[in-house]
């Protein structure tokens, strides 16, 4: 089972007179792991929300698996920055809600995949932040999605938990082969996880870099090369008239 491809054509998004995304063209292959990086307010989260149909675009088109993406697709799952578990449902009940047919067996399997079966009867309030985010990952996986959209899901976690989650996401992606778009402000996280890192700058694609590193990824000189290259580009001084985009 492979992931779906995503084609983005001439995509624009305006909030009032502010143009957040300008003429984005991007093709993501089936099963590809893409990292979207950029300064805060550059439009990377907006792009992800438009792909998931949570936000409407102002122009252009998005095709997922060749079909126009106008409504929320059950094959496309979205992981938010916070876990967004229902506090009044147990871990297992939360995960069950992720499966369109409300299947308990599948929910247990998904919990097993994130190594939290033993917490299935806990309330979300009894879990740590990292565990909550793992439950939320299990809930996204239980419907066997073809596309997983990750909106900075690790940014609120501590450093060690984050490394664990990165490994878990990489492992699950290798097993399930869904397409992943990861929005992150952490360039080294993007280089560690993604096949391809795309830099969004002032609502446009500033850089599209293939990460040609073997998996499992290691932190070494090669990854440092990519990190340095992308960071240099992000941090390079901007022309004054372009700095106004801060949304």
């Amino acid at each position, binding site marked *: 089972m492979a992931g779906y491809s995503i084609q983005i054509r001439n995509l624009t998004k305006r909030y009032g007179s502010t143009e957040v995304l300008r003429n984005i063209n991007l093709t993501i292959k089936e099963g590809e792991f893409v990292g979207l990086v950029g300064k805060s307010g550059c439009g990377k989260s907006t792009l992800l929300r438009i792909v998931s149909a*949570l936000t409407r675009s102002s122009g252009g088109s998005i095709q997922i698996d060749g079909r126009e993406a106008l409504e929320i697709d059950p094959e496309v799952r*979205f992981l938010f920055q916070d876990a967004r578990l229902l506090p*009044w*449902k147990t871990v297992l009940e939360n995960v069950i809600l992720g499966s369109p047919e409300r299947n308990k067996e599948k929910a247990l399997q998904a919990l097993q995949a994130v190594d939290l079966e033993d917490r299935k009867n806990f309330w979300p309030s009894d879990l740590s932040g990292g565990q909550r985010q793992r439950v939320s990952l299990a*809930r996204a996986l239980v419907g066997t999605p073809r596309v997983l959209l990750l909106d900075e899901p690790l940014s609120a976690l501590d450093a060690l938990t984050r490394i664990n989650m990165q490994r878990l996401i990489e492992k699950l992606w290798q097993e399930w082969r869904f397409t992943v778009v990861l929005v992150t402000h952490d360039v080294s996280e993007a280089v560690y996880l993604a096949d391809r890192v795309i830099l969004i700058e002032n609502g446009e694609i500033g850089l599209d870099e293939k990460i040609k590193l073997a998996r499992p990824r290691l932190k070494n000189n090669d990854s440092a090369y990519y990190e340095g290259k992308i960071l240099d580009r992000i941090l390079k001084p901007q022309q004054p008239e372009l700095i106004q985009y801060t949304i």
Partner: protein
Amino acid sequence: MEKSTSPTCSSSVSENRGWYIKKKFIPVVWKNASNLALAWLIPVGLLLIWGYLSASGNLNQLFPTPRELVQTTVRLISDGTLFDNLRISLIRAAGGLAIGGVIGFVLGVLTGQFETADTILNTPIQMIKSVPRLAVLPLILIWFGIGETAKVVLIALSTFFPVYLNTFHGIRSINPELIEMGKVYGFSSWEMFKHITFPGAISSIMIGVRQSLGSTWLILIVAETIAAKSGIGYMATNAREYMMMDVIVLSMILYALLGMVSDRIAVSITKRLLQWDPNYRRS
């Protein structure tokens, strides 16, 4: 758990641990018993003062002695009057509260979920709420007579509003991020209500129920005092005619107990429904 001051230097760690273990071994039963004692400190204290005043002959004729009160209670229990009146009062309170609560809940859900319903219903609801309940009493007596319907209607009228307002507020203050999560997972509007809106509003709704309980007893007393031939309120009014101070005081005590017990029941239901919330799990 127990709040312990954290050790300020490493040498006190072991001491602190010893203290913690010792503290943990104090039986829970003892803690519960001491809480119970504290809760009843003031009522029992008042009872003792009353007993003292009566024994020392300082009570005048307008106040019954504890002995009279106990005798009356025993008499009213044995001839069945007490339970008959208690039963009818409880039925009226429960019926009125159930009807008012359901109406308030349904209205709150409608106005909380749908803007149009809010626009249409809010003004009339606020107007009805602003008319003092006792001002409506003559109207209700004329319409429904002094039968059971009048009392139930009166209670329903005064209990629907707190439930309505708190349901509305609970639904409106649901975290929009959870609603968005529901959308991503393709929830139908019924699922959205069942899994997100309703459970999220429960703590608010239960506050409304507790407020309504307060007005239930208040209105019941008035209704039974003015227009009834049974019930605790009637018992008290009837006793006033004959200056039976012991029965009047007994009725007051019964109201106090009914109010307390019903609130306790509401609190324990709330705790049960909200066991997922760490704020309700402390005790």
